[in-house]
């Protein structure tokens, strides 16, 4: 426009510095940072996330998601490292894990991080879920954020179950024999399901490769997609904030909330590192389908289910294997539609809170019972060393 009205009398105009992205793209020699940013739009993306407004009252409770994400990244990294030393065969699995644990420099530490990391993920995931539950943050429009979160929860448990078999020691073998048989209690198709999960009638070489493929390929792919979707939804709908809106102005995510996140990360990851160093991972005896001096027990976070199986009278095992766990899972998935109250306030949704407390109490008490009844290993914490010597 301006160009058309130019006359010789017009004042001399110096070209103004480019301002729009298109103008900048036309510039001859942008700096590397600018060149990259013009193509990636990275800085805008970062800024948008750092400037994300936190409603007043958001604080320490909202750091758990970030901690969970960081723990998952740690888990992913140690997992890739472990895979470089691991062999998924009945002959190789046990030997390679033994090699990792007792011979490779830092092997015990990296495996320890992976093992304690998995426990930490479950703990933090439960806390994160409880926070969202009690704050009622799953309500409109965040229903799908919650649903995706519940799916992530289930994928994590599947990770734990498939990873447990990989060392191919007694504990791993028997927990998998029992765990996979749970699928066998499904009416009509149970036996086929067990074969499909095990890759064979018995837990063997094909079970190991199946679980390995699930643990390092299928589940990570699913998890990545779900976490991506979850984060996208969290940013799209923003943080819900306290149940009763608090007075005050919203503050940007950076630096206040990010600082809190960093402090929690420091503590959370610090605890995992401490445990990995103080309680190094062990290995039981090699998997033995005929060994009798072994009482199989699952990982601590499955002890609730384990105790539930124990207290079920004969003929009711379907209740413990499928119906109760299934109802809890489905109930969690459809929670945003079970709870129809408009308000997020706990008083406005008493029966949901009551049901939630009942489930938490059931799982909590049973898990505690399981933990208290776990026999202390006769040789103490380092039983694996005792096993290790005669096997070499």
């Amino acid at each position, binding site marked *: 426009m301006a160009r058309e009205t130019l006359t010789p009398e017009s004042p001399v105009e110096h070209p103004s510095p480019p301002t729009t992205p298109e103008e900048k793209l036309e510039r001859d020699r942008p700096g590397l940072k600018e060149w990259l940013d013009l193509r990636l739009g990275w800085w805008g993306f970062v800024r948008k996330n750092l400037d994300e407004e936190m409603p007043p009252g958001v604080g320490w409770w909202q750091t758990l998601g970030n901690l969970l994400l960081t723990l998952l990244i740690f888990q992913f990294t140690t997992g890739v490292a472990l895979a470089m030393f691991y062999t998924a*065969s*009945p002959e190789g699995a046990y030997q390679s894990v033994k090699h990792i644990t007792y011979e490779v420099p830092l092997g015990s530490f990296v495996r320890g991080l992976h093992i304690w990391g998995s426990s930490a993920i479950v703990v933090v995931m439960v806390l994160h879920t409880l926070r969202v539950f009690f704050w009622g943050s799953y309500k409109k429009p965040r229903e799908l954020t919650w649903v995706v979160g519940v799916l992530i929860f289930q994928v994590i448990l599947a990770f734990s179950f498939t990873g447990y078999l990989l060392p191919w020691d007694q504990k791993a073998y*028997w927990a998998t*024999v*029992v765990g996979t*048989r*749970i699928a*066998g209690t499904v009416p009509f198709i149970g036996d*086929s399901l067990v*074969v*499909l999960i*095990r*890759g*064979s*009638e*018995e837990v*063997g*070489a*094909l079970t190991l*490769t199946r679980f390995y493929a699930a643990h390092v390929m299928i589940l990570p792919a699913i998890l990545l997609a779900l976490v991506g979707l979850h984060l996208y939804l969290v940013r799209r709908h923003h943080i819900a904030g306290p149940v009763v809106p608090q007075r005050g102005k919203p503050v940007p995510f950076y630096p206040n909330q990010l600082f809190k996140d960093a402090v929690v990360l420091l503590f959370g990851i610090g605890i995992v590192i401490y445990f990995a160093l103080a309680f190094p991972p062990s290995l039981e005896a090699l998997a*033995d*389908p*005929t*060994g*009798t001096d*072994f*009482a*199989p027990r699952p990982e601590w976070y499955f002890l609730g289910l*384990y105790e539930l*199986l*124990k207290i*079920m*009278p*004969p*003929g*009711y*095992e379907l209740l*413990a294997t499928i119906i109760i766990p299934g109802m809890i899972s489905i109930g969690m998935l459809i929670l945003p539609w079970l709870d129809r109250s408009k308000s997020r306030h706990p008083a406005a949704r008493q029966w949901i809170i009551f049901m939630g407390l009942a489930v938490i109490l059931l799982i909590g008490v049973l898990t505690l019972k399981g933990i208290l009844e776990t026999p202390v290993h006769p040789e103490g914490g380092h039983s694996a060393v005792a096993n290790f010597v005669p096997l070499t």
Partner: protein
Amino acid sequence: MSETNGKCGCDAEVESPGKRKLLGWIVGVINLGLIAAIVGPVAGFIGSPLARKRKGTWIELANVDDIADGSIEEIPFSIEVKDGYRIAEHKYSVFLRREANSFTAFDPACTHLGCRIKYQQRQHRFICPCHGGVFDDSGNVVSGPPPRSLDTHKLKIEAGKVWLYKEV
């Protein structure tokens, strides 16, 4: 209608709704074909263990005379099993019970969720270490969650020996 079509403001050629629908439909069909082309073979491949035929063999367990009347003994044996890509010597065992001249071979897998039972001679009980299942000498459930009595194996007595039929 035509002037609002496209950014250039020129008269872009508009396909008839019928043609658009047909093309969309064909894309859908091609996509379904692609999904079937990948899911079909992979599902068949992963599910192939379901179609595996089990082979049965007779295994020599013990001399009839070596098993005392009224006793229950655990007898280990091993079979070469094709376990996926490998042929391995798999170890098994059964609890062989003799009453006069009749023999019963109890499978050591608990009928609840498959843990390995132990025989407690003094109490005359099979105990499962997992969820506390208890069975008596005849394999019947005494207490705990197991839904049915212990599984038994097919046996035959031939030339003074006890043979067991095992499918692997």
